[in-house]
């Protein structure tokens, strides 16, 4: 049998086409890997073995019939537990959905299913995606494959850890304020947040509806693009979706040379060195001292932490123990049942965000918080548009530091600050990708570079990331991980 560790989508596809391995064998290999190594990493919430093997068998039958198969057919992947999966428990890492088995699947899961991809596991995350370390999961923490004492990042920590540990060839995550890019950066993998609206949110458990984006976590930008092109597109079940072709030119290679501005904030020495090494044949990079003069980051973060909890408090009203989900026993009346159910089954960070959001939206505070934050959102969009007038992309470190130690950020505000460099892309709904760009010398941990573009420039951003990866090896260092 060929070496199946750390295969790319294309490599796995070629092995399947050449019949060097069957889809069932590939699925079994990954399930075996999860069984052996997941106790160390704890990235997985639910393994979907029987459904996965059934799907793999379908692909094998197709291959045996001599029919051509698509790139994703038979490719094992994992999905964050925010995606509804028909017949497979979906928890959002919350106790309030501990026994919830969805009666339908998210559009993106359906699309991947139709493309023949094999869902092998649902992965851990911060509860309802509220957090930046996966420590807010109501089930267990997840360990960073590069250093088991550290967080994998969050909220899509299970996605990033599962791709880094090779428990699947790619993963689906969600990104409301950096939840794909930050864990991708911490785990040395590639994470792509598309333009808001180009990927359907139907069947994705809602966090903050005007921010939530679905995107791939993969081991390269090339793989991320393959997945993105399958999941993108207008969906009649999500009225906020935009057809990819509306905004994204389908030509894969950008015409002419691109211009980017790199902001070297604080002590991101590793990232600056990585950026300096980027081949300049595609990209002219101008370095600026600080992004703060052009995009007020602290202000963006503050506006984000008003708007997002507000949307959360509205979206999470549905968890009331009536139609589905967990319900508290022994309540005296309907109000008491709501109060007890939510108090018993929602975790501390979810409670905090619901209270902040309810406060910001309540009579007397709406103008000072919610309305003001919506205006700041406009200012951030205007500031970014100005940068994009003369640049194709903004380059900026994904995080200021590498993955932090488990348990080291117990103060909620300290945790929020890890989103400093990622939230502004969500406020503006623009596409952003994080790719590995180097390793912090003292800890040996990966650091990520973000490439951010204009709304609709998804393919261009992916092209820049692919260009960088075609000429560097940071994204292949995963293969040296010893688990």
């Amino acid at each position: 049998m060929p070496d199946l560790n750390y295969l790319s989508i294309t490599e796995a596809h070629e092995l399947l086409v050449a019949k060097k391995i069957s889809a069932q064998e590939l699925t079994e290999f990954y399930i075996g890997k999860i069984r052996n190594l997941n106790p160390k990493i704890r990235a997985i919430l639910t393994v979907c073995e029987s459904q996965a093997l059934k799907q793999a068998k379908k692909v094998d039958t197709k291959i045996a019939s001599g029919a051509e198969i698509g790139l994703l057919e038979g490719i094992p992947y994992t999905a964050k537990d925010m995606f509804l999966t028909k017949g497979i428990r979906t928890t959002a890492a919350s106790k309030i959905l501990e026994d919830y088995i969805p009666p339908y699947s998210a559009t993106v899961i359906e699309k991947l299913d139709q493309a023949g991809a094999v869902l092998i596991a649902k992965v851990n995350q911060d509860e309802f995606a509220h957090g930046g370390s996966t420590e807010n999961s109501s089930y267990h923490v997840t360990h960073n494959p590069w250093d088991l004492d550290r967080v994998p990042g969050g909220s899509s920590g299970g996605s990033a850890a599962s791709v880094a540990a090779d428990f699947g060839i790619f993963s689906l995550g969600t990104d409301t304020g950096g939840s794909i890019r930050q864990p991708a950066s911490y785990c040395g993998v590639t994470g792509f947040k598309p333009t808001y609206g180009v990927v359907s949110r139907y069947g994705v458990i809602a966090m903050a509806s005007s921010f939530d984006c679905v995107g791939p976590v993969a081991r390269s930008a090339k793989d991320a693009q393959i997945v993105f092109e399958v999941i993108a597109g207008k969906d009649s079940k999500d009225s906020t979706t935009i057809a990819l072709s509306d905004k994204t030119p389908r030509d894969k290679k950008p015409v002419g040379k691109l211009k980017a501005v790199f902001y070297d904030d604080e002590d991101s020495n590793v990232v600056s060195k990585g950026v300096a090494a980027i081949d300049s044949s595609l990209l002219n990079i101008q370095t600026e001292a600080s992004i703060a003069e052009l995009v007020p980051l602290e202000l963006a973060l503050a506006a984000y932490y008003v708007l997002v909890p507000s949307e959360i408090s509205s979206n999470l009203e549905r968890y009331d123990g009536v139609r589905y989900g967990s319900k508290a026993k022994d309540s005296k009346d309907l109000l008491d049942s709501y109060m007890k159910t939510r108090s018993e089954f929602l975790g501390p960070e979810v409670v905090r965000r619901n209270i902040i959001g309810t406060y910001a939206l309540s009579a007397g505070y709406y103008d000072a918080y919610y309305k003001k934050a919506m205006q700041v959102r406009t200012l951030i969009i205007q500031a970014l548009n100005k940068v994009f007038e003369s640049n194709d992309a903004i380059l900026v470190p994904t995080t200021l530091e590498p993955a932090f130690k488990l348990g080291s950020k117990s103060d909620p505000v300290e945790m929020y600050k890890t989103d400093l460099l990622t939230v502004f892309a969500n406020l503006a709904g623009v596409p952003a990708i994080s790719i590995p760009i180097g390793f912090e010398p003292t800890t040996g941990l990966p650091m990520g570079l973000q490439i951010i573009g204009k709304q609709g420039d998804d393919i261009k951003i992916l092209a820049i990331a692919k260009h960088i990866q075609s000429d560097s090896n940071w994204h292949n260092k995963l293969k040296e991980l010893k688990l």
Partner: protein
Amino acid sequence: MAKLSLDEIQKVALLARIELSDDELVVASSEISSILDFVDTIQNTDTAGVELTSQVTGLTDVWREDLVEKCAIAPKLLLASTPDMQDGYVKVKKVL
């Protein structure tokens, strides 16, 4: 920003339909106050005349054909995760 009093937190928690014990109220009061301090930088920004952004797609009035679509999901399956049921109906405590 003034620290949120226990009474204020209690009032907001009631609006959010979350029961907090006396100890939890004390913790929440301090945590929520420090989060509000943190987001208060937006108050110092001049936003006179700035438009509000509530969404970023620019889409307005998205319609679909006025056709009845059959729900592909069987009602029985939809109700399979309902915690409290009686005779095929969702059971709730008395409202009136």
